[in-house]
């Protein structure tokens, strides 16, 4: 009989279901076809006017029923859509999942469309006092729910039949990876046989875009949207804001084998380390990112020599890509030149709270399909970043182990180690 516990005697955690939505489409099949074809999902923004904006491109998901119904509704639909794909693939009941839910989602605020319509429906008072006076008379929970941080997970728990108190979390751009880590830890503690980890983000609004713009974080290469996200290139000038979701059904190997489920990959290790340097800049020596990757390897019981592919955070900001190269070359030494390191964000943009989950999903598919998705738009390599970024064209490769990096504003860093086989 196969071993059911890892090097520390903990239950081995495997993936039995994967779901994904990005600007490239709904579901694994469409996404994988586009991703390996080097196709970009980045396009001009049509959801809201772009007058006065420096950035007029994004990777929004415009093809769902909720795409024009505000951040809360779209985030919910993204999460539920990927959850259904993942749970169905795992051979479980999409209305009765029977395990806890960990949801990475963007912080919610009342949408401007709601503010405008509430304000216009009154005539007394001005400013926020009027909104409060009107709120008192509202006879519906719909608007209220969009202002509650716990609402999306609460409704998802109902719809999917998740158990217990759902956890909604944010670790900025590392959120999706943290959701997976929480699921892994719960299974390792023996609290459950399976868990559902989702990262979902449908929060591209004018205000969200303006906020990131004011931090000079976004690419302004509006003229050729599909060319704007260019991780590791010399002329990279910021990330492209995007939407999407990724969902994983995590399960103890014992449970998966016991019910005859198809094992899609292994969540072998998770690492994290916070940065105390600055709110948007990482410590110049890269030590938190380095510690994050090393912690993940240690948790997985693996050495850096055993990693065959890096699914990079690769945001296409000048700062991140430089720091990520520094940390990878520190951890892997000279060997980093021989390891393929590609950035899914070159095609799908930065899906923020969802990124860690979406990219974990793609990391698993990379191993399963034996194909490494490329880093597109790599025409002017940054000479200071000496990496094999799998430039522009996919590559066939037998990959059995991956690390997936996520580094967030606010200093929250997470790294996942995924492997193909449980051993």
């Amino acid at each position, binding site marked *: 009989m196969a071993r059911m516990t890892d090097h520390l005697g903990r239950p081995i955690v495997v993936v039995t279901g994967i779901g994904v939505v990005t600007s490239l489409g709904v579901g694994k099949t469409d996404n994988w076809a586009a991703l390996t074809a080097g196709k970009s999902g980045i396009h001009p923004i049509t959801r809201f006017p772009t007058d006065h904006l420096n950035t007029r491109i994004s990777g929004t998901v415009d093809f769902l029923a909720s795409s024009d119904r505000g951040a809360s509704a779209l985030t919910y639909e993204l999460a539920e859509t990927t959850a259904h794909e993942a749970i169905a693939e795992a051979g479980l009941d999409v209305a009765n999942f029977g395990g806890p839910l960990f949801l990475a989602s963007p*912080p919610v605020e*009342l949408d401007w469309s709601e503010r405008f319509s509430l304000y216009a429906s009154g005539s007394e008072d001005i400013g926020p006092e009027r909104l*409060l006076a009107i709120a008192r008379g509202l006879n519906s929970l719909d608007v209220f729910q969009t202002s*509650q941080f716990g609402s999306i997970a609460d409704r998802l728990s109902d719809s999917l039949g998740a158990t217990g*108190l759902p956890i909604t979390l944010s670790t*900025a751009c590392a959120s999706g990876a943290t959701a997976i880590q929480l699921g892994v830890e719960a299974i390792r*503690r023996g609290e459950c046989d399976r868990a559902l980890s989702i990262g979902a983000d449908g929060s591209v609004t004018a205000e969200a875009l303006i906020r990131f713009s004011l931090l000079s974080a976004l690419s302004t290469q509006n003229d050729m949207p599909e060319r704007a996200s260019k991780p590791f290139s010399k002329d990279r000038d910021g990330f492209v804001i995007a939407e999407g979701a990724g969902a994983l059904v995590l399960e103890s190997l014992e449970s998966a084998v016991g019910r005859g489920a198809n094992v899609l990959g292994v969540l072998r290790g998770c690492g994290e*380390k916070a940065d*105390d340097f600055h*709110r948007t800049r990482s410590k110049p020596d890269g030590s938190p990112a380095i510690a994050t990757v090393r912690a993940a390897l240690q948790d997985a019981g693996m050495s850096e020599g055993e990693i065959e592919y890096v699914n990079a955070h690769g945001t296409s900001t000048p700062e991140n890509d430089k720091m990520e190269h520094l940390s990878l070359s520190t951890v892997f030494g000279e060997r980093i030149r021989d390891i393929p390191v590609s950035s899914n964000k070159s095609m799908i943009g930065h899906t923020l709270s969802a990124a860690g989950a979406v990219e974990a999903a793609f990391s698993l598919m990379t191993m399963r399909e034996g194909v490494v998705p490329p880093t597109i738009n790599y025409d002017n390599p940054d000479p200071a970043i000496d990496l094999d970024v799998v430039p522009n064209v996919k590559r066939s490769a037998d990959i059995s182990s991956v690390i997936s990096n996520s580094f967030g504003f606010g200093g929250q860093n997470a790294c996942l180690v995924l492997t193909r086989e449980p051993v």
Partner: protein
Amino acid sequence: MNPQDVVITGIGLVSCLGEGIDAHWEKLTAGRPAPVLDENRFAPYTVHPLPEIDWGLQIAKRGDQRQMETWQRLGTYAAGLALDDAAIKPDLDLCATMDMVVAAGGGERDETVDAAILAQSLTRDDLGVLLNEQLTTELRPTLFLAQLSNLLAGNISIVHKVTGSSRTFMGEEGAGVAAIETAAARIRCGQSTHVLVGGAFQTEHHDMLLGYELAGYLHRGPWKPVWQRQGSEGGGVVTGSGAAFLVLESRQHAEQRGRTAYARLGTVASGRSRRNRDDLGAEISKLLAKAGAENGGMLAISGASGAHKATAAERAALEGVSGLEPRAFGSLTGHLKEAQFPFAVALAALAAFKKQAYPAFDQQAEQAFAGSTDAVLATTVGYHQFEGMALVHATD
């Protein structure tokens, strides 16, 4: 005694009653504890305002203070109090290996900018363009981060150097419950040795009140204690600004560094009753049993918000257990949202540590309690969703 028991070795509190455990203990055990109220600023709503705080005592650099709106500053401040109290703050190695789970809200928007946009919205048809015009020119670039949910934890890392890990949970009171439950579970199974956990809420902002009032949850009219708001105008919740952070450690870790714990954190039970279908009272009773309070005979530090349905259900469930004497601290501090459960656990730990019960916080609706505080219950039933409880034990 189990070396992986979870003990509470540091507490940081801020509320309208003051800051720190001594100020709170003194005010809460005064013969007739009294709330601090501001009935005018947000009329018709009453709020429990922040006390005067010298931010520099915990956030030394003014530059750091400027990078945070009040909510983040409040949480960072209270986290510093807890770290100081546990004697962790001066030890950079302990900080660097310390895990952190913050229960966060966020969204302290610029009310002046918003009000100007709303005013102009009545005379414009191109609302999208109006937004772009105004937000690109009027928003302070750093405001985004200064009010962003995960940046409370980010600032705690920057200011106090807690960097073992940093996780932010969201979801009103449930976030506070899950934060403590997760932190305790990680310690019990060896995934963590010491964790900073807590939350903050700064209610003195219209958007923070709006978050309740969109479903009519706020109490209006003259102030009343939590248990006496049924049937009054409005929804029953009176909010407060405040924060509670705890240092949780494994018993072994605390003993090895020679620290005396306030209390041991026993079972933490959480739930998500489907309130449109399930009987909330029955679900709360189940949680009481799960937490180990089904035999009563103890003090129950209740996080009841005053929200009519949830508060009535909690009261009935507590009354269903003989000798379970409630103390709804919300009558004195107001509802602290994400910080409500950490605050409840902190007050329970203090009663266990001091071997003394709190007097009634509400002379009419609460009874004196003469029993032991060797075990004290902490409850939080969300005003709209999510429930949690914990049993806190004296250490000896």
